[in-house]
């Protein structure tokens, strides 16, 4: 082998990725995730237009029909059209996902931010409270609270919010603490700015990145948790179409697999969408991962 050949082999000359390859590597999955989410949002908004039937129309003569041209995804035990109920179900899942995470993130961030900014007693109290809630397994605590409040979408959302805010409080707390010691914040102090201006104009805009990542990843999480609580019978009041409760309705029906299978796919796809997107957002906001 020639010396030059050896050298080339040793240097492992792999082709340099093209721009398109790099784009795909970096934005491919997140783009897929974004697409899935957008499709579901459109479906949720236009469900009445898209659906061939009334989601709650009981038709006992047509119960447990397998997928056919008439009922694309079959019918359930009460003869309701599964496809229609899936379309309507997206409304509950998306709404609860967004509401729980956004409201939870808002209160969590606020509390965490206040704690980090106030220091002293206030910080101690808020952060210990955060620790306390975090020492319960979220699903069990939410279940206990939901059971105490009674069945219903709103109550379940409240129960989830009660266990949802602490992770945001913790993140915001550490983010604000990190930013506080940055020199640009010290410069703002030296300029004489008040705490409100420093918090909202300087610290929060610079802490928002990791929060966005957590929010994105967490919506999928919230969707799955709400569906779980519904599956256990705590989420929605029947006959509301909701994916988790639809799986519950079909869980004994192994032979009529379509009743439980399709709602599960819906949950999977939407959660996957948020996870794809969140992963991408994280890579995108993390300068270290971006370098590569």
């Amino acid at each position, binding site marked *: 082998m020639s*010396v030059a050949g050896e*050298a080339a082999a040793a*240097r492992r000359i792999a082709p340099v990725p093209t721009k398109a390859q790099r784009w795909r590597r970096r934005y491919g999955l997140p783009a897929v995730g974004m697409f899935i989410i957008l499709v579901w949002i459109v479906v949720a908004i236009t469900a009445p237009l898209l659906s061939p039937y009334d989601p709650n129309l009981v038709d006992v003569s047509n119960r447990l029909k397998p997928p056919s041209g008439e009922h694309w995804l079959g019918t359930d035990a009460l003869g309701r059209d599964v496809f229609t109920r899936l379309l309507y179900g997206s409304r509950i899942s998306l709404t609860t996902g967004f509401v729980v995470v956004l409201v939870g993130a808002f209160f969590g961030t606020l509390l965490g931010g206040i704690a980090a900014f106030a220091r002293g007693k206030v910080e101690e109290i808020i952060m210990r409270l955060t620790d306390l809630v975090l020492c319960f397994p979220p699903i069990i605590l939410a279940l206990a609270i939901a059971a105490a409040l009674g069945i219903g979408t709103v109550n379940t959302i409240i129960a989830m919010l009660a266990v949802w805010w602490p992770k945001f409080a913790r993140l915001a707390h550490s983010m604000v603490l990190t930013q506080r010691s940055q020199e*640009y914040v010290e*410069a703002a*102090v*030296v300029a*004489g700015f008040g705490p409100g201006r420093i918090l909202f104009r300087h610290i929060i805009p610079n802490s928002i990145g990791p929060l966005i990542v957590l929010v994105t990843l967490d919506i999928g999480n919230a969707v799955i948790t709400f569906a779980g609580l519904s599956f256990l019978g705590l989420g929605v009041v029947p006959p509301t179409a909701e994916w988790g409760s639809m799986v519950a309705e079909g869980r004994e029906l192994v032979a009529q697999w379509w009743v439980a299978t399709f709602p599960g796919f819906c949950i999977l796809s939407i959660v996957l969408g948020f996870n794809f997107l969140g992963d991408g957002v994280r890579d995108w906001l993390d300068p270290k991962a971006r370098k590569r």
Partner: protein
Amino acid sequence: MTKTLKAELGRVATGADAPALEVKNLHTQFFTDDGVVSAVDGVSFTVKQGEALGIVGESGSGKSVTALSLMRLLDEPARITEGEVRFQGRDVLAMSPEELRSVRGDRMAMVFQDPMTSLNPVLKIAKQLIETMVVHGRFTEAEASKRAVDLLGRMGVTAPERAVESYPHQFSGGMRQRVMLALGMSNEPALLIADEPTTALDVTIQAQILDLIRELNRDYGTSVVLISHDLGVIARVCHRTIVMYSGEVVEEGLTEDLLADPRHPYTWALINAVPRIDEARPLDRRLTTIEGQPPDPLNLPQGCRFAPRCPFRVEKCDVHPDLAEVAPGRKARCWVTQAGTTLPKKTLRATAASAEATPPRVIAGRDEAPLLKLRDVVKHFPLPKTGYFQPRRVVHAVDNVDLDVFRGETVGLVGESGCGKSTIARLVMRIHQPDSGEIIFDGHDIAKSTQKQIRPLRRRMQMVFQDPYGSLNPRMTVGDIIAEPLLFHGITKGKAETQERVDELLNIVGLNPRVGRRYSYEFSGGQRQRVSIARALAVRPDFIVADEPISALDVNIQAQIINLMLDLQERFGLTYLFIAHDLAVVRHISDRVVVLYLGKVMEIAPADRLFDRPLHPYTRYLLSAAPIPDAAVERERGYLKLEGEPPSSISPPSGCRFRTRCPLAKPICASEPPPLVEHEPGHLAACHFAGQLK
């Protein structure tokens, strides 16, 4: 087969005269999203057996990439695309992964810049040392573990038997760098590459590490490649030096010749941009600087890469020059010096003897009450508790500090890390509140005031920060950053007036007003520091605290910022409290200097006095440790070696804080803290035996 045999024979024939390392036409490129960057662009050099070679250059010059290329330690997207690195007769670039591994850490070893991150935090020192020795088959496990203790001892690690059983976090930066050197030397390599090995360390620790590298080079005959941005460091260690600029070698020669008589305008500029610690302050304090910044690596000039900034540029510089011999043993990549022209010599202003010749600057405010007065200021920072039931420990950041700053003067605050200099800056600016003591700014005691009460004074005192990357809000445009305090304090009203003032401020600090619309990440370090200064000037202050404003910058940019600050002082009658760890810069810029150690003032004196006739032993050591960019001076200069490490500021020594490292220490030093006494007019020192160190 025959080929390798011949090569082998050839190597033996040339024997000891064969170079330890021969680099030919090395090209290392980064395949980035924006294009291909040639970080190392045709670099060639040789290192003789037992020689210490220095590689100097600014950040981005390609010096560190060169170092990493020698051992092929670069990751994607960096690739070595061309060249030869001949080490002990073999081309490193052509080696198989297996061969490469057998060379790395065995015959060729490397020490990196940041000792804090270079050791694996979860493995014991012993394991990290032993595995290197065992993997190359030179020692058995048992031999290696004995040798690990030996090596640490030789590198000056205290209590090596205990040290090997410790984890890295139990050591200071200096000690970790000793461990790194032990690691590098563990298989007695033929070549040691040190990439900015002392940049992260304090000056007295730097002196210790440089001594060690010199010893290894001298006593073991290990060839050394030392990469540094600091000409003083190079002057202290290296026989020969190459200077890099924009990925190329621009000059090569014996260190002594190169520093005394540079033959490339870039080297010339580097040398002239730095003030010297052994040089009295001239009347005109402006430093020689060159314009602009290194070229954009994606858009290199066709001709000489330095030409756009070169004060000696001629027409021919449109053509790219080669590295050619300009004198015996000296090469330069410059048409001007190749034609025989010499560059103007720097005139040294002599020290001590003629110090009196440069009269001290007249400070108008010296006769009035001080503008800023600190009395008995104390600040302790509580450490986070390790558990609910544990006692809270505190860092003694600043302890009973007295300090005056008069109107119109520049007071330099120097000391090593942990001495409290940055804390003092933050106490004066009331970013932190002192635990006790008085801070009087122009008659107002601000030590206990609320932020609201201080707000009116914020227009008179401002601060310039150390980190040009961290001190500007990345989410705001530069214009908004400067405008915010203007509007907040009601200095300007309305958009037009504010815009006008922002433009004016940008002009004052030497930036084009058009840049106001950009975000800070589009700027270089030096430009950001100018923005930071413009922000401070916006409220028209008369007092500015500058916390290491130049320590993150390359020397030429440092000089530009120093000149800017001097100009501004003259123009607006500013008073500076200037914090730095670079002693030469402090001497150059300050009227008076305050030396701190572990939160206490050790000595205060007029600048030239302090540097020529220091009274406190710590000051003596500090000055002695600072390397001077002059190989001849470095060779002649016998300097004091300060042993050991600074004690912990969590439990500082009783009495005099310096006593644990002081050769003069007597029992009284442990029992009684020495008061800060005026030994001569304006010259104060806190030492029971001031001026007695020989």
